[in-house]
């Protein structure tokens, strides 16, 4: 029997350190499963930022409220794709929704996703943009006008009282939406946190850390998008909006960092059977991505920078630059968080006696290329959405009021 040896796997065999169970050479969840929680985290984070404005009346972040909702939608639409591409039998994917196995956290995906997309995000966006949609349905012609007319669902009334109802409904849905966003990403954390076989994942803090890292990444994304869209549209970037987002970003990051530290402190103090292999993991295979990127680049530097903006009187312009670059670093850092969780959790053997290795393919179904495309697609969808439903305050409103 001449084995049909995969050269990449044979090379991986050479890089095994210590003892791993023979079946553990191949990583089961690769780059696509790193991207999945990254995307859903951005969805949850962007939505929670939007809800700060809606429910808690943080007026300063009004300029990015509607953009945040569209961003959440654009990322949510793409979020299932990395999962789908990763399946051995993508054609059977619907079995998870049609015949869910109720003890599986993964089987909840269909319910959580449908609830969040249909009940929360689409309804919320509909109530928020209804007046605009009605306006466009009267001014646009052809198939585009038809789409807008369908989207009004027949509710053409834009009187003040009717708009007040929209506002009230939007508020109610946002209130439902906050726990739903937490559910959406907390559940993703639970997929990892519920695996008792894996000490790197199986901690009760996992869903909580996921949620806070999601909030951090969502605020950072919206901060970057606010600056980029403001530049692109040549509109002033309001300092008060940046200040508010910078402040929330700082405190969310402080909280996230505190939780991560608590997790580590707890692990070291309890020093269970897995601690030796985890220390080797962090000081070896994950040294660059965890200590270098996640901790120093993605946490400590932005924490210091944002901290300085909170305690020092820094002039407007450099302050905005500090916010912006901190946000960029945080977005890179949270990607490293996802990488370290997903890949890190599979590099060490469940024998706790050795390590396997992982190098993502450049091309192919589960490759860096597909991963990059999946990371870029939400931005393209967002661009289309902002064309279709301009989120900028004033643009849609003027049309609806003039009609």
């Amino acid at each position, binding site marked *: 029997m001449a084995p049909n040896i995969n050269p990449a796997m044979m090379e991986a065999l050479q890089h095994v350190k210590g003892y791993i169970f023979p079946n553990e050479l191949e990583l089961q969840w690769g780059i696509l499963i790193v991207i999945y929680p990254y995307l859903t985290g951005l969805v949850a984070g962007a939505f929670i930022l939007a809800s700060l404005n809606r429910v808690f009346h943080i007026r300063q972040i009004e300029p990015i409220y509607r953009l945040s909702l569209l961003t959440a939608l654009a990322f949510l639409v793409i979020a299932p794709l990395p999962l789908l591409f990763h399946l051995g039998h993508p054609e059977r994917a619907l079995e998870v929704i049609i015949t869910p*196995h109720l003890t599986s956290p993964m089987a909840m995906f269909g319910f959580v996703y449908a609830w969040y997309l249909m009940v929360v995000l689409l309804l919320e966006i509909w109530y928020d943009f209804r007046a605009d949609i009605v306006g466009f349905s009267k001014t646009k012609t052809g198939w585009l006008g038809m789409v807008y007319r369908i989207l009004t669902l027949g509710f053409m009334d834009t009187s003040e*009282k009717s708009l007040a*109802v929209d506002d009230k409904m939007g508020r109610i849905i946002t209130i439902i939406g906050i726990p739903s966003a937490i559910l959406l990403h907390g559940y993703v954390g639970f997929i990892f946190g519920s695996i008792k*076989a894996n000490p790197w994942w199986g901690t009760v803090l996992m869903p909580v850390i996921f949620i806070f890292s999601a909030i951090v990444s969502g605020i950072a994304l919206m901060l970057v998008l606010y600056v980029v869209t403001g530049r692109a549209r040549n509109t002033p970037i309001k300092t008060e909006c940046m200040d508010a987002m910078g402040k929330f970003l700082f405190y969310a990051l402080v909280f996230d960092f505190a939780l991560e530290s608590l997790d580590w402190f707890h692990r070291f103090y309890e020093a269970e059977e897995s601690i030796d292999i985890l220390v080797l993991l962090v000081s070896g295979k994950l040294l660059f991505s965890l200590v270098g990127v996640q901790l120093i680049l993605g946490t400590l530097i932005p924490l210091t920078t944002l901290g300085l903006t909170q305690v020092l009187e820094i002039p407007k312009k450099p302050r905005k630059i500090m916010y912006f670059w901190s946000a960029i670093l945080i977005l890179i850092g949270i990607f490293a968080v996802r990488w370290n969780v997903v890949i890190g959790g599979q590099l060490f053997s469940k024998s706790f006696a050795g390590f396997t290795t992982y190098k993502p393919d450049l091309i192919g179904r589960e490759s860096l290329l597909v991963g990059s495309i999946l990371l870029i697609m939400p931005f393209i969808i967002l661009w289309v959405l902002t064309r279709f439903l301009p989120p900028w305050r004033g643009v849609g409103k003027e049309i609806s009021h003039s009609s």
Partner: protein
Amino acid sequence: MNQFSNLFSRRQFMRLVMKSMALLAFLQTGVLFWFVRKSRAATSLPEGYNPKDHKWCMSIDVRKCIGCGRCAAACKMENHVPPEPYYFRTWVERYEVHGTDEPIITSPNGGIDGFPPQNSSEEFEKSFYVPKLCNHCETSPCTQVCPTGATFVSPDGVVMIDYDYCIGCRFCIQACPFGCRFFNPETQTADKCNLCYHRITQGLLPACVEVCPVGARQFGDLKDPESKIHAFLAENQVDVLKPQLRTHPKVYYAGLDKAVK
């Protein structure tokens, strides 16, 4: 009044949304039961075999195993396990223990080609072989996490996979604490030991037990009072792998050392 009717109709709209959701959930449950019944009916077993009459398990006497690897080789042949040295339904590990040092563990090609001379030039205090396979846990973490129920515990205690139903998400592989599952590149599904279910339901032994030259592996039926497993459990100091995880394995080891992972 017009405003009121607008408000009212939107409330109705919300109600419609809620009703549709409820209907969808109801339909989904219906389809679910239909599928479950269908998949149950599709299972074909030899005539006269009633899964409820058995509770299959395996006993392994570490002190008897000579590390010949015939079990792992027989398993690959019997179950068409891909030949690559990183896909196994069963494999053999060699432990070399030097005092209180970390043991040296090896399993080249799962032990199929035998083991090279001892790894260390130092004199070792003890060395032994440990065959591994799916533990067919009573409370199996792998079946718990399966999103479709494609892997399940059969009534006779065997953890099995429906290869026509598995979507290949690999969650079960992550959930197995023993590294007993792998992703089969040919079927594009999860794969693992099923105690040679096609053989045992016909009264035959699993291939690995059949070929073991020293009787280190014994197949047993916990529901059969005549089964040798009862004597094995009664006469030996018996342990299971990773008992702290409370998966209740049904592969019982005698002579297991603390070095074993």
